[in-house]
């Protein structure tokens, strides 16, 4: 019995694949995903001279990342793991996390090969336990001895970059494609500059330097990734980051203003005084909820715009190894509509549609990402060697747990 074809990778001869990459002819740009126009394919020429003996027509060629997951399938995995997590009072969450990650990685394929996530649940659990104890002590000291707790909080700041580096090293090390692991080689100093110094300057400058902080962080996150011996590198331009930050802020400002005025008007009409929550009637409750929903909606629009625009800027032209590349082609308007649909779906189903939304989102971002090979993919792959990290640079699950707890967005 064979599994259904939708999740079965095409294991044709890899060399052959490179001539007709998946659904795209090499000399034709990939079809845009659902209505969005695609930027022209004229990327920079390969840095290396074209190797002799290989067909010229195939160089350079692009392949689209594919995603084969299904919402229903992931819903069943999600609900069973969520129940086990609740029944074990959270202990199973480490296993649930690994299974979820493995599902999404395993359903993401490039050139017929899927990604692997190899973290050990027990190690993840240990990281989470250590972090939980540390946070509990911190909160306890904050509430009982506020001054000492605050000192601890400030004292913990230098550990934040260390945890970020540790999380990145760990997560890239346990990610594999074609049996070769990714690596993250960023240093503590670089993380301290990107995640402490620049955000601090961003706050001190009343937000004027905040986009610069974002650019520094994205640059740090991207420029230290390696796939085996092939390094990722990209110059992230500063001014476009400023541009999309300003547009997102203006959008958010308009939405906040409208929601505030709306709520003021409605509450005034409803004759509501503050401090009388218990005296609300249905109409007043509606007056309170509607502006909140309007604000939430506007926030989604602004966040979706920012996410799509920033992604296109950061991943506009990432070089990988010897002239290969990676590129994002999200259509901003299309993504805003997509994200709004996801929000409505989640709200209407009280969160039950979340698995479908996650699968849809993974598919959306996979299919709007293309990889460019400077030489036919088979030759390109043969040029990539695995590199084993030294013992001190393998990262830890403590950093990973901190990333989960504080929702650090360290992904590309």
């Amino acid at each position: 019995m064979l599994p259904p074809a939708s999740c079965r990778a095409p294991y044709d001869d890899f060399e052959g694949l490179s001539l007709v990459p998946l659904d795209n002819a090499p000399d034709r740009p990939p079809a845009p995903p659902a209505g969005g126009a695609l930027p022209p394919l004229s990327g920079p020429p390969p840095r290396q001279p074209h190797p002799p003996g290989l067909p010229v027509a195939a160089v350079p060629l692009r392949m689209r990342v594919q995603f084969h997951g299904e919402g229903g399938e992931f819903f069943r995995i999600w609900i069973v793991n969520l129940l086990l997590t609740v029944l074990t009072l959270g202990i199973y969450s480490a296993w649930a996390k690994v299974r979820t990650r493995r599902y999404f990685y395993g359903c993401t394929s490039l050139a017929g090969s899927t990604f692997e996530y190899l973290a050990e649940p027990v190690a993840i659990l240990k990281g989470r336990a250590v972090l939980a104890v540390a946070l509990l002590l911190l909160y306890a000291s904050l509430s009982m001895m506020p001054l000492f707790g605050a000192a601890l909080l400030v004292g913990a700041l230098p550990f934040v970059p260390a945890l970020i580096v540790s999380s990145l090293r760990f997560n890239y090390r346990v990610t594999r494609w074609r049996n070769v692991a990714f690596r993250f080689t960023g240093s503590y100093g670089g993380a301290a500059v990107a995640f402490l110094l620049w955000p601090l300057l961003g706050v001190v400058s009343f937000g004027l330097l905040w986009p610069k902080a974002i650019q520094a962080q994205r640059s740090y996150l991207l420029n230290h990734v390696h796939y085996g011996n092939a390094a990722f590198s990209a110059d992230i331009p500063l001014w476009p980051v400023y541009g999309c930050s300003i547009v997102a802020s203006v959008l958010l400002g308009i939405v906040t203003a409208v929601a505030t005025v709306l709520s003021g008007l409605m509450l005034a009409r409803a004759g509501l005084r503050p401090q009388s929550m218990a005296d609300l009637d249905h109409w007043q409750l509606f007056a309170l909820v509607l502006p909140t929903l309007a604000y939430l909606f506007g926030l989604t629009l602004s966040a979706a715009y920012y996410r799509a625009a920033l992604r296109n800027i950061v991943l506009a032209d990432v070089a990988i190894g010897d002239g290969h590349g990676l590129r994002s082609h999200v259509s901003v308007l299309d993504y805003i509509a997509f994200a709004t649909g996801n929000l409505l779906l989640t709200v209407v189903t009280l969160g039950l549609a979340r698995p479908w939304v996650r699968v849809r989102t993974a598919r959306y971002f996979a299919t709007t990402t293309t990889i460019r090979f400077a030489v036919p993919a088979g030759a390109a792959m043969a040029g990539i060697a695995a590199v084993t990290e030294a013992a001190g640079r393998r990262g830890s699950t403590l950093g990973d747990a901190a990333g989960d707890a504080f929702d650090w967005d360290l992904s590309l």
Partner: protein
Amino acid sequence: MSEAGSLRIAGCHYPAGSAAGQAAELHVSADGALRLEPGGRALGHWRGLRVPERLGRAPRVLGLGDGGGFETGDNAAVDACERRFRGRVAGGRLHALEGRWTIAWLALAGLGFSIFAGFVWGIPALAARVAPWLPASVVVGSSEETLASLDRHVLRPSRLPAARCEALEATRARLAARAGLSGGRLECRRGGAFGANAFALPSGLVVITDEFVELGGDDDELAGVLAHEVAHVEYRHGLRQALQGSLLTLGAALLTGDLANAGSFIAHLPVVLAGLHYSRDFEREADARGAALMRAEGRDPRALARALARLEGAARQKERPAAPAWLSDHPDTQERIARIEALAR
């Protein structure tokens, strides 16, 4: 399957140490010996493979003994070999659970029930268990802080004659001693936005507003209200309420961590509603205990019911719109009065 008992698994072979790879077939003989085609290289026995757990229909990479890998989407064949040569499929039971819609709906129902039970019974029980362990310094400190903040923003100094307030304090002290409580005191204040009100803070500090005293209730009625507040302190209702709030928020955050996009509003609505429900239970408990304390003092246990009726009469005169029952902080006053009357009988 070709030769008797042997299996062929189609996939892609990755040699150790490189991303190079090619389409290949793994031939598994009837006794578990592995051979890679094309090339015919022997790869040892099936039991030497590292086989990841099955997960949906996602392909798996089998770890070869030499550090290489073999990726295949033929999960059925891999599981068949696992069963045959290792006797069990790692994670097979989980995969069976995750594969059925019936199980998924059952899990959903179980999840709904667990969350309901945890929020309605688990968290209150945990809060009641934890509350006695909070250090007295924290309890007193936070109570004094709350009063100071209320004094700054809402409450004003009392205009009652000092003797009236002292008499009320004496009543409170007798009731507190009856409940086995030490410490605590009574503060009289002009209520401002609070109007006619009385409330207790976890340290045993009871605040009664001038407006309440001026409603014209007799000494028994005021004592009934103080007994109700002392009961709140005795049962640590304030602390438990605060702890329940924190635990609820924590639980909701853990559960909906996934749901961040849907916004905090949706995550917090059930927390707010559940919180209101808790306070109703506490009110009923305090009503019953307050009546018992009054009886033990040799006073009329129905006095609190009269005070409540008086309070409601005063509120009705002001003609405020009635709150929807499910959103009200206190159980319907008529219901409370009826309960107290029934207890006193």
